[in-house]
């Protein structure tokens, strides 16, 4: 199972990095989205991949890792997801504004000299 998730992380990160290095703004946004999936999954996986672990405590109980999933990476990733959305929105708007100003959607604001 670990193999599947690590391969998935690798695939997402690879596609993301490839797109990050492209010249068009939309490619960079998509690349960043893919890369953040990969990173979120990676952070999530540092808590160990547990199937069927309980996420909710029994009232009055002092939880232990034997029964429950690790909440710390989950809390980290939860905020990361929301922040990731916010930064994607900001990047999108910046790039749209840049496109309006420069007339091109090249990441440098001007087409590559050939």
């Amino acid at each position, binding site marked *: 199972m670990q193999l599947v998730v*690590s391969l998935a992380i690798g695939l997402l990160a690879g596609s993301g990095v490839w797109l990050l290095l492209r010249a068009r703004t939309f490619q960079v946004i998509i690349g960043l989205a893919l890369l953040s999936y990969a990173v979120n999954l990676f952070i999530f996986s540092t808590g160990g991949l547990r199937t069927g672990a309980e996420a*909710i405590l029994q009232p009055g109980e002092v939880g232990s890792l034997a029964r429950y999933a690790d909440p710390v990476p989950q809390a980290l990733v939860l905020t990361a997801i929301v922040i990731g959305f916010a930064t994607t929105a900001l990047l999108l708007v910046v790039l749209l504004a840049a496109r309006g100003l420069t007339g091109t959607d090249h990441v440098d604001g001007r087409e590559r000299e050939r």
Partner: protein
Amino acid sequence: MPDTLLLLTLVVLPFVGAIAAGLLPTHARNTAAAMAGSVALIGLLMVWAAYPTVSDGGVVQATFAWMPSLGLNLTLRLDGLAWLFAGLVTGIGALVVLYARYYMADADPVPRFFAFLLAFMGAMTGVVVSGNLVQLAFFWELTSLFSFLLIGYWHHTASARDGARMALTVTATGGLALFAGVLALGHIVGSYELDAVLAAGDRIREHPLYATALVLILLGVMTKSAQFPFHFWLPNAMAAPTPVSAYLHSATLVKAGIFLMARLWPVLAGTEAWFLIVCTAGLVTMLFGAYVAIFQNDLKGLLAYSTISHLGLITLLLGLNSELALVAAVFHVLNHAAFKASLFMAAGIIDHETGTRDIRQLSGLNRSMPFTARLALVAAAAMAGVPLLNGFISKEMFFAEAISADAPLGLANMLPFAAMLGSAFSVAYSLRFIHGAFFGPDPVDLPRAPHEPATWMRFPVEILVLTCIMVGILPAATVGPFLAIAVRSVLGNDVPDYSLSVWHGLNLPLLMSFLALAGGVALYLLLQRRLRSDVEGEPLLHHLEGRRIFERAMVFLSWRLARRVEGIAGTRRLQPQLRLILAIAFLAGGAAVWQRGFGPGNLPSTPVDPVLALIWAAGGTCALGAAVLAKFHRFAALILVSGVGLAVVLTFVWFSAPDLALTQLTVEVVTTVLLLLGLRWLPQRRRVPGERGPEVLTLTRRLRDLGIAVGAGGGLATLSYAVMTRTPPDLLALDFLARAYTEGGGTNVVNVTLVDFRGFDTLGEIFVVAAVALATYALLRRFRPAPDSLEAPMQQLHQHALAAARPASGEARPTADWLLVPAVLARLLFPVMLLVAVFLLLRGHDLPGGGFSAGMVVAIAVILQYMIGGIEWTEDRLSWLRPQVWIGAGLLLSVGTGVTAWAFGRPFLTSYFAYVELPVIGKVPAASALAFDIGVFALVVGATLLMLVALAHQSVRGRRAASPASAPAARFLATVGED
């Protein structure tokens, strides 16, 4: 008056006054002048109030603990020397303020001028009353900063800007050297307190770091006091308004260096290194400055070089390692301040009333402004060292020291002659100032007809000239006591016998004085032809111009070198930058592997579940597809990315993270809608077959990027595998699990972590989200789409064409009834979705849910209405939708919850919980964390909607630009505040 209050008033009041003056309206010049004048007078009063203590040899002192662990205290310390300088700063400051009131033109923003002047006064007072060396260095840099603002006050002229920049560069660089020197000194002594440093003279002089500290401190001093070869900034600072020159170059800025030399004289002087550096610099500066001053055609330029020369004289005296010379130096500081301030003011009056300062153009002003002429005559005579004026007495002392100096290297034989030569030069330029401006035939072609200035403008000059005469005739009775306490505070019990009087009998110094006077007059007569010619600058040394060297160095440093380094190491292109970041990430990872070793962990891999494998087969294909299609098929790529998102959601569910899955799912929807809205504004891109062949360069570039991508992906995959097959650390997990219910009052540990354990992090995060939302909104307000995106997109045009072709016939209308069935469903579902959001919010503390996902659900519900109903329809009905209000309310509620804890004497964001029985709904956890979570919820709703709606509105704006807007949209736009 208590010492603390006195000292604080002295130092802080000018800064307070500066802020107050800066806030005055531009035309309030009388108010600003009155304010500045009273601040200076109050300062002078404070200085006077300290006189009883200081005159008894006492020290007025106040200490405020700042970082006592590092030996850093704020210490204010007013001893004799500081008292004398503080008196100069505030006294001449008051006179300059009065003068400036009449000098400054109505058109100038005068309150700003007085604000800078007061701030500078505060900084200067700070320097002289600092009882701590670090603090002194701080105020020292402040004086550089405010002098920069003052010199550059007329920033519309290039010379003012250049002069200000040069002064700042030179003096602030020197200030850095001084700071380093002070640190070295503090290291030697083990304390930065002035008292401790002054008590450790022998230790300092014998320490191996002495030379380093000395050179660094002297660098600071000599740049500030315009000693050769750092003198060149001072003449260029003459672009400042004349009151500034009168203040900075007579009593304050340039005297800061002298003050520091006198301050540290007991611990730094007395060595050969001190003598060599200080004496040589002073001697060269004195002769050079005086020589150049003779040939200046600008009145202020002449005074500037004369200032340099006199500063050189004082420095020379301080360098002689003799107590008597120190007395002479301090005395000359006072005298120079008096006559130089009055001469600057006189030059300003001439400039003000005639419109020019060029000596060749001026002539015979004696007739049109007789009173000013007499005042200037006396001050210039004092500068030349004519008997019965103050300059004469300190010059006599200087001559006496020059004769008796115990100087090595044959300097002793040379010193008296150098002193006489410098003095003769000084006589020559003083003569030139007076003779050139006030005598001779009536002036022709002056920009203005000269006449006497306003009475009060002349008043400061009168006071200063009166001082020159009084001190010159009765030195012991007037200035004697003040000089005595200043000297005693430096030398302690080693004060030598000195006599302040006009007549010491027929002796060698007197003879030298007369020789110098005669020589100066002769020199001036000899140079008449040269001075009347139009040749600029002085003979012999004309090419040795510090300014040009400085400018060349600046151009090299800030332009050529910078450009070259940028050319080698920098790029403005994004892709190389990203590659660099990736390379660094590789290196960092590689270094960790190389250091710590690498290998799979100890845990066995759990068997592969075919369902999850299938999910990721689909997810991975989606990712690859998005990577391939993102250039030419953006929409398809976007949908594929959502596919990846769904795979991630399922993975979260699979591995026991329901909260994450919920949040990811909702965020996924919002992100997709957002990017969909953005697609509209991107240029069309079509693959034109055969247009661009596979060039070798393009291919290589792609192969390289592919290599990087595969490397990054492979590396991260390996890393993840290695991490996942190790036992995860339980650093915080156990603690959080154990305390979530017992102390946090919730069974959903993730939510309790977010709103309670790590509530402060969450607070920071929602502030970031709010800031981002406002930033996107602000960016979009000024959004101007590219011309080729202005038109409605192809699909819309197509649809409209269709509608036009098939007029309404009672059946379905192509545009108005677009998506009719989904629209009905979505409208039906709207309240249900809001209910779900409330449900998620309320149960969040105990079960999967919480503010983030609930907020996202509301945002989705609203945006769904936008999608099916259009902007006008939706905003007509959802007028309560004010995203900014939601954001503000959310932030206020979250912060308010945190602050409420203070009311109960607990730290910020401490939570409290209990269960409340609500009718119908049942038992609800009423933790204060819930209020916090509601704040998060409101913020997420507001921020998400603000971003989406602002982006969506762009198409309405585009249409409105083309045709008049429909009423509801215009109304909503007004409420959102878009223009």
